[in-house]
């Protein structure tokens, strides 16, 4: 009896989510999947057909794929390298009273629209920004805006808070007495960090990197503004294909390919990081 009613409650609780996901995620993806096998109608849009021609045409957007697959991992790595020491400082070094202030400062940028902040970077990196400053002290000919470097800077800036918080949480959870135990057993502070702190913070690192990486794979705004027309991601290619050239079937093929690439990378990554009996133990405790 009890079991039956609890399964009824479970169904009831999960129904809104299931309906939402079906209507707004699974169905649209199926539509895109169907479109990707179609043909381009004469006035633009979709004409029913079954052809692999759109997929055969993928190399035409190779640069977008290359940019995304280089800059998304690079951006994730750069953000991680900057975020980890910051998270470590916040979780383990700073006194509790100042910690709250500093944590708030990490979030403060979110109070302004992401679009406006990225626009601001256009000016900082543009001709009258940093390059002008460098010229002033004698370094000439530096171009930042519309280069991969500008996109990378934008990425690190935009995604740093997302990287900091999961790592901060996992570092803060590491019990002080574990570090003392390691010290007591003969491990120097550096070895203690490598053998205790770092492994125990891995779940947070893995989560943070995955979130940032997935979001970056679909990034559109930063390359559009800071990369000009020169550094574009798949996201930009999709906008272009769907809204400008109205080539829905090809756009669908590109979108489906992006989803497949992401699924493959993320599942490989999960298998690598969440090895059974490794990180699992940590998150269970």
């Amino acid at each position, binding site marked *: 009896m009890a079991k039956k009613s609890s399964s009824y409650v479970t169904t009831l609780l999960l129904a809104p989510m299931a309906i939402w996901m079906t209507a707004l995620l699974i169905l649209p993806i199926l539509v895109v999947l169907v479109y990707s096998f179609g043909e381009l109608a004469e006035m633009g849009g979709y004409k029913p057909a079954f052809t692999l021609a759109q997929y055969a045409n993928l190399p035409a957007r190779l640069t977008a794929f290359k940019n995304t697959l280089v800059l998304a991992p690079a951006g994730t790595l750069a953000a991680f390298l900057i975020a980890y020491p910051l998270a470590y400082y916040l979780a383990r070094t700073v006194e509790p009273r100042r910690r709250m202030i500093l944590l708030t400062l990490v979030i403060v940028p979110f109070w302004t629209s992401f679009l406006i902040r990225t626009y601001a970077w256009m000016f900082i990196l543009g001709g009258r920004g940093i390059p002008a400053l460098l010229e002033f002290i004698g370094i000439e000919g530096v171009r930042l805006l519309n280069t991969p470097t500008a996109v990378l800077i934008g990425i690190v800036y935009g995604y740093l808070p997302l990287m900091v918080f999961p790592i901060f949480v996992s570092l803060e959870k590491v*019990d002080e007495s574990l570090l003392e135990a390691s010290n*007591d057993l003969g491990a120097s502070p550096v070895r203690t960090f490598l*053998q205790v702190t770092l492994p125990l913070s891995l779940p947070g690192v893995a989560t943070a990197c995955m979130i940032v990486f997935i979001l970056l794979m679909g990034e559109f705004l930063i390359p559009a503004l800071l990369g000009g027309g020169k550094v574009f991601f798949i996201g930009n290619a999709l906008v272009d294909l769907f809204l400008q050239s109205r080539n829905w079937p090809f756009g669908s093929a590109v979108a489906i390919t992006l989803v497949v690439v992401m699924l493959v990378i993320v599942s490989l990554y999960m298998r690598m990081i969440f090895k059974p009996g490794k990180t699992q133990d940590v998150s269970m405790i």
Partner: protein
Amino acid sequence: MEPKNTDLSTTNNHGDFDIEFINVTKHYGDVVALNDTNLKIPRGSFHSLLGPSGCGKTTSLRLIAGFEQPTSGDVRHRGVSMVGIPAYKRPVNMVFQHYAPFPHLNVEENISYGPRQRSPKPPKQELKKLVGEMLELVRLPGFQNRRIWQLSGGQLQRIVLARALINRPAVLLLDEPLAALDRKLRREMQMELQSLQREVGITFVLVTHDQEEALSMSDTISIMRDGGIVQTGTPSELYDTPVDRYVADFVGESNFFSGIVSAADSAQATIQTKTEISLTAPYPEGGKHLTIGQRGAIAVRPEMVLIWPLTHEQPKDIDFSVKGRITNRIYLGHQAEFRVVTDSLGEILARIPKTAEAVTRDLAPGDEILLGWQWNFGLAMPDA
């Protein structure tokens, strides 16, 4: 149990003390955690630091481990100062209060953690063998591949014990290691720790607030209060000759009768209570002498108190008696405990062994009785 190495005539050499505190003081900001403390722990002994929370016992342990440095004074190991030496270079290991096992490592990796920090690292085969021996020692053979979250509290306790002992430390520090275990398991682990200490011959320093635990396990005990050591001695010394009321109260139970000292010499003192009763008792060995006019107390252990019915004759050797009424009787198996209320001395606790039950067998709450003790079984001390 005989203390192994408390004969001071053979321990003049400072190298014979595994741990020595010389005028050690430790401040945390304005708080004085440890004040000008001296302590000597002989090599190979089981020593306990006993006291309520905030008495400085954990600070002392952390000073030995190297997690803290003294504000002033010296902490020595076999005559050599350890001040300034970081924890990871000290020949001591600790069993933490909440065990602190490494959750990301399995049992084998946890136990071999210490040896793996040495350079050069011992060969794999040797490590495996060592871990096997340690698990054998703590009676958990075959646990190598268990994950930490699969272990019970008692098992965790043994694993962290093995993790510390595998390093063959000169001193093993135990920070309330049994506090988290249930009563039965605690009793078991107490005996195991004791036999383990004899087996490995390492100096054990135990921090605890549980007097029963300290009394049953230790060769020597330091009673601590307010950042200082009040008295150090063997369990029987502390029980039989507490230097003051605090120690008498902390180690075992006592009846205390306080008042003004009305007569005193170098061997004994007489105290006059508020109710005009005069009680005389000798000083404990090493205890402070009292002077006339100061406040003092007479301590009498419950097992020294005898009770008998009004109709009964006063037992011989008893030179003092007072009338009272039984308020409670608790059967403790090997003895019976009586709570008696007297007009002149307040509530008094008496424990009568089973072997002396003949006169008390029929006594019940509400009965009027007489009660007394042999004068020299009491102890006179300052009323702290």
